[in-house]
């Protein structure tokens, strides 16, 4: 038996992406979300169009699910399922990093906290599962913005709120930040959501590389960052390894 066919996995990921949110995405957004070259994404989209799974709007050039697929409904990873699949690695990440761990998904222009592991110092902490965080000021949110075109589309209205002097607010600055996130495969926030608070996050991917959420640590800036104000490489490594381990369990082969 041959192994799984990569192009089919990617096609499935594109379909899942289109099945979420507004369901109309351009070629660049799709390619960015899945970390594919434009040419590769285009080839797959053309094939999907051919079989009727995808349609392209003649006026805008954007893609959406085709009529042949609509009866399959929209489904993506249930958030409770995501927590259940990630819990072991989230625990291990908290134990390794010594910091609190959160997993977030995109919900209507915000980050929905779907899982939270306390900082392992046995101090009094309260569970924030179900809480909403800002996309633009948290590491988890930036990962979602970078890889989830629907999240990005959802914040394009309105002015992002300013929490500190360092909160990223302009679209130009944000697109530069997100390009770096995509380039490096992780995001951070340093004194952006609140003074003295920092975080590091990486994407959790499912089949075909579709980003289903983000996982990260957060804590005092002086612990998360080196004296130069940059996240400590060893912590970044722990976060990425943990997110990759979850992704592997979810079937994302390449990451």
């Amino acid at each position, binding site marked *: 038996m041959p192994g799984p066919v990569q192009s089919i996995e990617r096609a499935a990921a594109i379909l899942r992406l289109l099945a979420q949110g507004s369901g109309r995405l351009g070629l660049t957004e799709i390619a960015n979300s899945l970390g594919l070259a434009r040419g590769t994404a285009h080839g797959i989209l053309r094939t999907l169009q051919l079989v009727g799974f995808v349609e392209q709007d003649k006026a805008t050039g954007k893609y959406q699910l085709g009529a042949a697929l609509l009866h399959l409904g929209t489904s993506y990873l*249930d*958030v*409770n*399922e995501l*927590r*259940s699949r990630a*819990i*072991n*690695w989230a*625990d*291990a990440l*908290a*134990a*390794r990093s010594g910091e609190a761990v959160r997993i977030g998904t995109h919900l209507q222009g915000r980050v929905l906290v779907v899982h*939270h*592991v*306390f900082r*392992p*110092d*046995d101090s009094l*902490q*309260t*569970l924030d*599962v*179900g809480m909403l965080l800002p996309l633009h000021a948290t590491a988890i949110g930036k990962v979602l913005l970078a890889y989830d075109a629907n999240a990005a589309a959802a914040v394009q209205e309105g002015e992002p709120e300013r929490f500190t002097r360092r909160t990223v607010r302009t679209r130009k600055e944000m697109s530069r930040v997100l390009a770096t996130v995509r380039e490096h495969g992780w995001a951070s926030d340093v004194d952006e959501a609140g003074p003295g608070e920092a975080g590091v996050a990486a994407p959790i991917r499912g089949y075909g590389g579709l980003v289903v959420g983000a996982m990260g640590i957060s804590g005092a800036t002086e612990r998360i960052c080196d004296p130069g104000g940059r996240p400590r490489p060893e912590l970044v490594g722990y976060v990425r390894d943990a997110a990759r381990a979850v992704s592997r369990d979810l079937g994302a082969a390449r990451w």
Partner: protein
Amino acid sequence: MTQRYVMSIDQGTTSTRCILFDWRGRLVSVTQREHRQRFPRPGWVEHDPVEIWRNLERIAPEALAHAGVGPGEVAAVGIANQRETTVLWDRRTGVPVAPAVVWQDTRTAALVEELSRRPDAHVVRERCGLPLATYFSAPTVRWLLDHVDGLRERAERGEVLFGTMESWLIWNLTGGPDGGVHVTDVTNASRTLLMNLRDLDWDPVLLDFFGVPRAMLPRIRPSSQTYGTAKRVLPGVRISAALGDQQAALFGQTCFRRGEAKCTYGTGAFLLLNTGAEPVASTHGLLTTVGYQIGDQPAVYALEGSIAVTGALVQWFRDQLGIISTAPEIETLARTVDDNGGCYIVPAFSGLFAPHWRSEARGVIVGLTSYITKGHLARAVLEATGWQTREVVDAMNADAGIALTTLKVDGGMTSDNLLMQFIADVLDVPVVRPMVAETVSLGAAYAAGLAVGYWPDLEGLRRNWHRAAQWTPAMDRKRREEEYDNWRRAVERAFDWVRPAAGSS
């Protein structure tokens, strides 16, 4: 080469897991494989022991590969297992003589009924600390000896071996027909109804009572001690611990002191309280069992509240009814409504275990009206786990004479926030999850690591325990009392369902 990791094998009711832990008790890699549940007749539950062995052959090397290490870097392996599930196999060929009979199986109901009418039936609880019930291994062994042709003779000649899952796996790992070591540990042996709870050895009176030949039984060893070296799958790795999964979780939660307790939520749920060096008899429907034994030290005992069906009810909702497609979706579905709509499910699929011990009870759904949706049913599924916990905690508090002030939890169901909050609400105490949800595996690893000196002592292990999450009670007292009352009335409706004559023989 430095030995950097300890491996655990958790052979559970629904799946087998293999995990590598580092010195700080942190998970390094994990692999898992489910095996088939066979329900050939109502009340029967079977596993294929060969399928389980093959799963282990596959996932153990995978766990090493994920971490990028070889067997040489593993200091020891510890095994935790579903308890009481009975395997009989041919010593010469290694082939099981029958499917494994799972602890939930009730085929021995009539036999147990018959045995408990014997005038000498009191010897059972006196000597092994457990009630006579279909749950434990001895009646199953007896049933197989009675029902498989020629088996009794072969067993008496020592050609057929008995074991629970840890025995079966250790025997296979250490060579199988080619020199396999036939052992069990005190915690697993304590669940057979055949071991004397004080001597920690097979009790001749009990062997005689159940008609089980000694020649087929494994040697009973401490829970933490090297039994042998693996010849297959993990060549050269020492096999240094075995515990029943629930005892392993007690160990993994570092409940090493008298008075410390935990509850593990998997297929069933099991509340265990460390009672120290003395076995304590329950007057409220709990079991007296061995907690663990480290090397040649005295055994530590425990009181146990066993609930047969918790996660298994979620599984039933998924597999038999098909209402959800994965277990965690039960929470998503339950959150579509605000309450149970007046509906209660009592999952007495294998009768009711602690604190009732009513083998004739069967499951009921009560309070159905046209108003009830699948969302309400999903709530009732989760609430059943909450109320059953409340019943065993009440029994534990009554037996111990002091009330539990927090509940330490672990197991797959602890990823369900709605459920954990509900448990805190109905117990009216905080519920705390440690940083390793796979506490069963961690306990097996700890016991194995201790045996080979990878970890020096229990105190060091305690320092690895950290709180990962806590749920604080938020339900008002009146509502809690009303709901508990409804639950108890629902339970009464589950009683007396199977008529004595209807039991299979």
